[in-house]
């Protein structure tokens, strides 16, 4: 395998953005990510993006986002109708071919114009589940009940939320942050029983950009690159009632294949709902006493759909490059109730 590293990362602030379109959100983030590398669009070997036309409500909406890249003369480019973490996976595979040394990965999504919990119903089985239009919050709540009744306490969920809010105080890109104690959180009423409102993610619009480089090119572009030591993604069976919702078999398998080994200085886990962070950490064998979990606040603090997974990889890499640790685990999820999961192990040394 060819050594590939994250050499640059940038993200937008996340909020409900009622004035800018996707290209306008993306353009300054692309410039910010490219600037420290000194590269231009035409120095990049391969460009890959992640987004969903269902958010924009328009077929091939991702094509217009290329305006932010400036793809003329033509460039080598691809797109996944998934979170940008899977675009990064495709770019990593493309770099393994060996004929190019750099790749640009970006993701963008505006969740705020529609009802994103309903839009996400469209990813379900179209014959026996989709016609009932179960929304993403209801399905996450079904999973939360299965998790709680498998021997967990709602105090565990409140602890995750309180830590997310606290950690997000130091994250200028976060949407929700603050110092809230667990007892105050538990005093709030149930919303989608067994979930409270704060167990669910905010509605966020945003974009993120990662620059990847291989071997000596990475060392040339970045003082302390975050090397991808392992990356893998796996999927659980489609029917929600056919899997144990209290666990994540696909995360466990992806973590084993990516070589997590239960060791990391920090972990960025893509868990839009509080209980999901606990399920993912357990599947990866991560222990909160040894690993700083979601130091950015994670997806509970900011959840731009199609972007938040790529942000996990970018945040983990950025922190390693800044010397906050030597080994990190990043995780991204897709589909209802943690159906599909990607795990990436990153390392940086001086």
């Amino acid at each position: 395998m060819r050594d590939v590293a994250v050499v640059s990362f940038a993200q937008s602030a996340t909020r409900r953005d009622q004035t800018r379109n996707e290209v306008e959100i993306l353009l300054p983030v692309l410039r910010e990510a490219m600037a420290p590398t000194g590269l231009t669009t035409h120095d990049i070997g391969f460009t890959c993006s992640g987004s969903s036309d269902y958010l924009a409500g328009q077929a091939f909406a991702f094509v217009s986002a290329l305006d932010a890249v400036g793809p003329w003369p033509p460039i080598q480019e691809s797109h996944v109708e998934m979170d940008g973490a899977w675009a990064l996976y495709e770019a990593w595979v493309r770099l393994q071919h060996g004929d190019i040394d750099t790749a640009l990965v970006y993701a963008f999504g505006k969740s705020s114009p529609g009802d994103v919990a309903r839009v996400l119903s469209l990813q379900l089985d179209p014959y026996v589940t989709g016609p009932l239009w179960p929304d993403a919050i209801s399905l996450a709540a079904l999973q939360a009940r299965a998790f709680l009744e498998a021997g967990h306490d709602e105090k565990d969920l409140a602890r995750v939320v309180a830590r997310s809010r606290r950690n997000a105080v130091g994250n200028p890109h976060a949407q929700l942050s603050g110092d809230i104690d667990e007892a105050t959180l538990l005093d709030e009423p149930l919303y989608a029983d067994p979930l409270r409102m704060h167990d669910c993610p905010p509605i966020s619009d945003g974009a993120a950009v990662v620059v990847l480089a291989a071997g000596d090119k990475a060392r040339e572009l970045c003082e302390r690159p975050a090397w991808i030591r392992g990356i893998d993604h796996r999927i659980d069976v489609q029917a929600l009632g056919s899997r144990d919702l209290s666990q994540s078999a696909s995360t466990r398998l992806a973590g084993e294949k990516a070589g997590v080994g239960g060791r990391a200085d920090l972990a960025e886990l893509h868990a839009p709902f509080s209980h999901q962070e606990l399920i993912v950490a357990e599947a990866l064998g991560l222990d909160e006493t040894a690993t700083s979990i979601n130091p950015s606040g994670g997806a509970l603090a900011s959840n731009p759909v199609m972007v938040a997974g790529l942000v996990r990889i970018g945040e983990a890499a950025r922190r390693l490059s800044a010397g906050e640790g030597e080994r990190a685990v990043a995780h991204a999820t897709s589909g209802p109730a943690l159906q599909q999961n990607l795990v990436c192990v990153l390392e940086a040394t001086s």
Partner: protein
Amino acid sequence: MTEVLSAPHSMEFPYTRSTGPMVGAFLTGLRDRRVLGVRDSAGRVVVPPPEYDAGTAAVLPADELIEVASEGVVTSWSWNPKPRLGQPFEQPFAWVLVQLDGADTGLLHALDAPRDAIRTGMRVRIRWAEEPVGFIKDIACFEPAP
């Protein structure tokens, strides 16, 4: 006088799809008020029946479907405080995963029961639509079993 031209326009994909041997048989079963599943490689009776085995990817036998009961047990549930367009009820209701008697997996649907009465493990049964047509909504919802 100016004639205003108009024409109907509907947003649609103007093609039909086959639901295939397995999902098709399941939906046809619903039309007859029967619920069908299939035994997978691990020996579990899976409802609704998938065409391919989740563990081995083997084709599962569409000619060996197993009928399960229209009554079963709630294995998980959630409260939906904000019903959305297209969902089974317009007022707040519960989503449930129900393991029908004879099945080893859960079927997702809505439950018509007061919130205080709902718990994991409760017995429920299918309330059939008045005129089943071979669609998942032939199951109107679940209701508490007497």
